[in-house]
């Protein structure tokens, strides 16, 4: 009596799980159908399938909300921050992992603490310093903030990975006379590519979805990120749910595409990567 064989009981469980998954997807159904309905249909038959796709909601939402420009901003911020994080995190994590002193483990603990501590307290002084340096309301400030905020996670992941990596390759390269930078770029960094992938997908999701930081540092400026543009759009036009859903659907498309594209890595990263 194998516990893991496919039996009739497994079939019952399978059906049950399909039902759970369908129930779980009801919000997606609501999002999709509502975004394709007219105002009247939203009012009189909100739960049914739309009789005919009313795609004008999407063009209205797109044109009125500034989602296009903010999507570009979010994209620039995410890509630049992730690139910065990979450089900062891989160098820092490598150095911490390759030293076995008390100082290195102390520093490692401080980075872990940096992951746990919330940003709510630090954001108050940071906001004034950034404003003083004219870094609020612009892309550069957001990129610096996101690199800084996600650095602890990045260092943590790289340190964990490098610790498990044998030293032979680096030593061989150095024996061969390669300088440090060359060793790092040609030998070490390529060996880190699995964890670089994890850092890239995890931090992309976190930075792309960020609302709190952009609300504080970009509010009132012309530079908007995608969640911020959605927030302004909805708070100005709450009554029309079909338009709201169309706008929400537009904000979901890029991350959905990313999810489909990098799903395996995302699931692995979120499940185990956080531990390193």
């Amino acid at each position: 009596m194998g516990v893991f064989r496919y039996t009739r009981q497994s079939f019952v469980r399978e059906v049950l799980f399909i039902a759970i998954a369908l129930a779980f997807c009801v919000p997606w159904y609501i999002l999709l159908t509502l975004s394709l309905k007219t105002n009247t249909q939203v009012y009189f038959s909100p739960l049914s399938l739309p009789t005919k796709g009313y795609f004008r909601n999407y063009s209205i939402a797109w044109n009125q909300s500034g989602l296009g420009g903010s999507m570009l901003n979010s994209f620039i911020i995410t890509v630049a921050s992730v690139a910065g994080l990979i450089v900062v995190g891989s160098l820092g994590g490598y150095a911490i992992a390759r030293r076995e002193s008390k100082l290195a483990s102390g520093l490692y603990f401080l980075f872990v603490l940096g992951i746990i501590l919330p940003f709510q307290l630090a954001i108050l002084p940071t906001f004034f310093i950034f404003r003083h340096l004219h870094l609020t309301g612009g892309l550069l400030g957001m990129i610096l903030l996101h690199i800084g905020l996600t650095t602890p996670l990045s260092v943590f992941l790289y340190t964990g990975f490098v610790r498990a990596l044998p030293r032979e390759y680096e030593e061989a390269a150095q024996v061969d006379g390669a300088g440090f930078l060359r060793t790092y770029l040609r030998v070490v960094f390529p060996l880190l590519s699995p964890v670089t992938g994890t850092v890239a997908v995890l931090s992309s999701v976190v930075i792309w979805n960020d609302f709190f930081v952009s609300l504080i540092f970009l509010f009132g400026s012309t530079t908007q990120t995608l969640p911020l543009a959605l927030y302004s759009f909805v708070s100005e036009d709450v009554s029309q749910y079909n338009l709201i859903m169309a706008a929400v659907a537009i904000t979901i498309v890029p991350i959905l595409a990313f999810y489909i594209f990098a799903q395996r890595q995302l699931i692995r990263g979120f499940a185990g990567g956080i531990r390193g």
Partner: protein
Amino acid sequence: MIFDLRTRLGRGSVRRVELARRPRAGGLRRASWLLVVPAAFFLLTLHFIPIVAGGYVAFTDWNGLSTFHWIGLENFRTLIHDPVTRGALVHSVELAGAFFVIVNVLGLALALGLNRTLKTRNVIRSLLFAPAVMSSLSVAFIWQYVFDQSGALNKFLGAVGLQSFQHAWLGDPHWALWTILAVLVWQYTGLVMIIYLAGLQGIPEELIEASAVDGAGMWMRFRRVTFPLLAPAFTISATLTMIFGLRAFEQVLALTGGGPVNASETMATQVWRQAFTFGRFGYGAAIALILTLLMAGVTLTQLVILRGRETQL
């Protein structure tokens, strides 16, 4: 370079060249500290220094503009006596506690049910995990319609003849906070599930089979074999869900805006509102300091206890 030497000098002399070129270990180590500088710079300037500065501000009456004065524990006294901020503190703890229990129970149950044998497990896993990678704000706006007075849930209840269960979910002080809980649970159950699934994959099948052969029932197998071996997964999940619960912000702003009459304000929304809407930076910092201490205290205690449990195995 070494290849040139090898061809020129022949095999025998390579060893000598190697010895000469091998960098002294000490020299390499000293240089490598430089690599930590960028990461340490960000850690100091965006984490520890502003946290210390913010902690200082919590004891002042700073309004973001003029000079400020040290007022000792005054902010904290106000915080305890003001029903809005005291309420926010209570709501955050209630929300995080309920979220922690529900999402871990559901996530673990789903992971156990989905482990190994099901044919559709990959599709179901992908569907359940998807909300966790979406923007909390986008997700919460969908749910705003679900809970709206004339929204999906009430229409559904009306259609199946349960009119008596209809509520103004978002407008009722007794329900508002729990709508936020519902969204949090929906968004993160899949995340907790994949953490436990990853943990389950590390448990050898033979171990479960063996205990089954030994006559252990399903509950016994779970209690004595599976769950103890899931300790590392539980540590991650517990830490993460506690942090997510305590810092809930987007969901509140999108669903209820903290209302009605502050019934769903959380600590994170209060920090933002007091500091950036009302300009009470000292007061906002005091709330943020409590949130920071609460979060660090709870998660570090959890980590110490749970890691201890892991090593006992």
